[in-house]
């Protein structure tokens, strides 16, 4: 839940601040969690970061692209609400699927058609699509393992099945029979 809150927070601020002009940066910083500490976030600083991060960031995990830690591959270096495409184009946070689609092409096309990911809404009416980062943490995109619900209760026949395994009655009898047949055949051959 914390992750979801964090991500939704990121995106809310992303969407809100896309309406805010660049001159109103100080106000945005109040809401944007990174900017509370990182007012003077420079490119040089980011490139010198080492993992693991400071105590405040222990909850953030970076398991995307084999522990890629170059923030600026996706994040814009001068604006925390913008993303860098690989060709240098800047896009807003809400357009982020384009960015993901640069590497995850087939899934991006599936997502555009509504095949990948969950759709909410009425079956025959309008549906709402989720964007990538609403389900996947961009910094650790693989789905976390979860606890399964309780299995169905075994029918009473299941106990009998275990007993059968302890005493494999059918298999022994058939084996004995085949052995007998074999020995008979052997005797037959010997007499011949």
């Amino acid at each position: 839940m914390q992750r979801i809150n964090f991500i939704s927070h990121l995106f809310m601020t992303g969407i809100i601040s896309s309406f805010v002009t660049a001159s109103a940066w100080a106000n945005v910083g109040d809401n944007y969690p990174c900017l509370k500490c990182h007012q003077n976030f420079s490119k040089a600083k980011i490139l010198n970061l080492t993992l693991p991060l400071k105590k405040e960031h222990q909850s953030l995990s970076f398991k995307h692209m084999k522990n890629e830690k170059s923030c600026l591959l996706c994040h814009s270096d001068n604006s925390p609400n913008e993303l860098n495409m690989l060709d240098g184009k800047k896009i807003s946070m809400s357009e982020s699927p384009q960015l993901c689609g640069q590497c995850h092409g087939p899934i991006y096309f599936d997502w555009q058609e509504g095949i990948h990911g969950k759709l909410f809404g009425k079956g025959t009416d309008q549906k709402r699509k989720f964007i990538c980062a609403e389900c996947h943490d961009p910094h650790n995109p693989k789905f976390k393992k979860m606890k399964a619900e309780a299995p169905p209760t075994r029918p009473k026949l299941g106990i009998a099945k275990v007993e059968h395994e302890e005493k494999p009655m059918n298999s022994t009898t058939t084996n004995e029979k085949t052995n007998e047949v074999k020995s008979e055949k052997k005797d037959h051959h010997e007499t011949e």
Partner: protein
Amino acid sequence: MKPSDKTKGTKIEKMTEVMLANPVKRRSFLKGLGVVAAAAAAPLGAAKAISDKAEESSFWETFFQKHYKEMSAEDKLKVFARIERETKASHGVEVKVQDPQAIPGVKYAYALNLSRCNGSRRCVTACVRENNQSRHEPEIQYIKVIEMPRGTMDPENGNLYYQGESVPNEGKFYLPVQCNQCNNPPCTKVCPVEATWKESSDGLVVVDYDWCIGCRYCQAACPYEARHFNFAKPNITAEEINPNQSYLSNRLRPKGVMEKCTFCLHRTRNGKNPACHDACPTGARKFGNIMDPESEISKILKEKRVFVLKEELNTMPQFFYYFD
């Protein structure tokens, strides 16, 4: 007492009126039995046990109820009112029984992405909650999730009872199986009383619980083990009851009838998705209208390599699986 027999139908209606008007004494009860001789043996024991007058009247109402397809709108309203009354009496819960009709131009199909399913059984619990199934003794679940080793496809030797603190378990994949809503359903053909049928327009296979005699032929006929029998009265507490009910899907079942998945008919015919679809945490399930070429389900059928279970039986399932 075939549903098509109209002359008997009128007689039965008169009988019902008489029965409901006069409190039943043993003598008049036996007289009544003489008229309906064919069906006499079964209710005799049950009628003795009935003491309360309200229960008695609802017993006779159920006994003389027509087949679902032959009921007029008024009859249906009466039946729904009776079911609501019975639930109120037995569990003290106000429920609403409806009968949503098929949407024209819609035929439902389901697709499930086995690469995405993580075996968390969220669909199973959501289904049980939505459809008012018996929670224990008998425990009825429409969806079975089968765990199999990766690289194999042998559902019959799969594990239904896997435990999972953190699913997906190492080296396993999961195959959820529920009613396939076959286009050529073997289960409806074997019913001796036509209590189960495939809806002609949207293709859902449904059961009239009040018409079912509980012979369990359909359970034997179904190759997907999708039909379940109520060996006892469903075990469900008042808090667990879902009050949005429909006659053909999730109303409380009586003892001794078959039940099955109906793609949450009461939801889907009102434009919602089935409960299992909405509960899936990974988005593996896709539900939609196969007649609409722009729906996701049609696109999946076009673009993905889908397969069905037991294709060789020619049941033509409307439940498709795929990997991607």
